[in-house]
């Protein structure tokens, strides 16, 4: 998600220390311990990613405003994430349009409106693709469980 291994290692340290300090806050009601730790890691990674993005945007805007608005930039970021996907993964089994919106939301931390803006697609289309993608993941999960 963070692309720089040094950023990822800093984040890993922060997450482990947070889990160490807040282990007594874990509740089974919220899901499995794995889900709890992954949520902490993802939420911190997205915060960091958004702050990096804000910083990059301000630098790019002063340099070349057109470049900051280019959808190619974001597309390449999502594509970069996708290249790291394992071939047999659940995401790899989704149609490209569904995978793209899920990757932008899950790994790049973009909201539905931001994704619609960047992909130049109607908000309704983005929502439908997200929901279809999640439904497909759910079906894959059920198939694996069976």
């Amino acid at each position: 998600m963070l692309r720089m291994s040094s950023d990822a290692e800093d984040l890993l340290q922060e997450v482990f220390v947070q889990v160490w300090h807040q282990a007594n806050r874990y509740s089974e009601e919220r899901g499995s311990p794995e889900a709890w730790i992954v949520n902490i890691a993802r939420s911190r990674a997205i915060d960091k990613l958004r702050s990096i993005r804000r910083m990059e945007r301000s630098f790019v805007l002063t340099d070349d405003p057109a470049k900051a608005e280019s959808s190619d930039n974001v597309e390449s970021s999502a594509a970069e994430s996708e290249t790291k996907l394992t071939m047999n993964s659940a995401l790899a089994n989704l149609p490209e349009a569904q995978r793209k919106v899920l990757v932008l939301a899950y790994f790049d931390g973009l909201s539905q409106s931001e994704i619609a803006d960047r992909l130049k697609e109607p908000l309704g289309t983005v929502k439908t693709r997200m929901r279809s993608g999640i439904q497909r993941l759910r079906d894959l999960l059920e198939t694996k469980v069976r």
Partner: protein
Amino acid sequence: MATAEHEYWREQGEIYALGALDGQELKDFEAHLAAGCPVCDAYLRETGETLNLVHRSLQPVTPSTAVKDRILRQIAGDKVVPITVAQPKQTRGWQIITGTIAACIIGVVLTGTYYNYRYSVYSSVVNLLRDPTTRDLPLYGAGPTPTAKGRFLWNQSGEGHIFVSDLPSAPEGKMYAVWTIAQQSPPRYVGTVETNPKGQGGLHIKTTRSELPVETFAVTLEPVGTTAAPTGPMVLVSKQS
């Protein structure tokens, strides 16, 4: 709540679980959750577990060994926080009532299903006993279980029932396979019988009619999944050796 309205919240919940809901829709959904919606709570939790698949799609990367040292150094001076199971939130009265009713309904359904099953087994055994062509054969312990006992009710139409007693539970990875043996024919697997902690068990058997009359009935201890031919020791047999 109307189904159509709830369908709307369910759809919003999927995008919320992904972290992509924003603007007024986000505020509305959070207000809906805050008002207390057990259906959405449960659906969100389930969607969250599904989305856990997503991070597993990434190729794992091993961090440098320095990270582990840094983490251990950072927590070295900390007081250990005991891990305790978080107490569930205060349950509302209506939730208790609904839960109790649901538990009663499930209990009644499960009890009904259990008694239906027991009744169908008893009826089948009674029908076998009513049939004058049904044979009632004693089973004798053999090999590793000489004190085991049993009875085999068998009808030449291919229906039967086996009762066993004093037969210890099959060890891990093993099962008790039941065989019928007709004259000059290889043993035929007809089912697996399980025993309770008291060593008792039973199995109702329905197979296709055998061409030749069955002469011997046997139970052998087999590795789980063995159905082609007996390979393990005989633990019960219809003819005393």
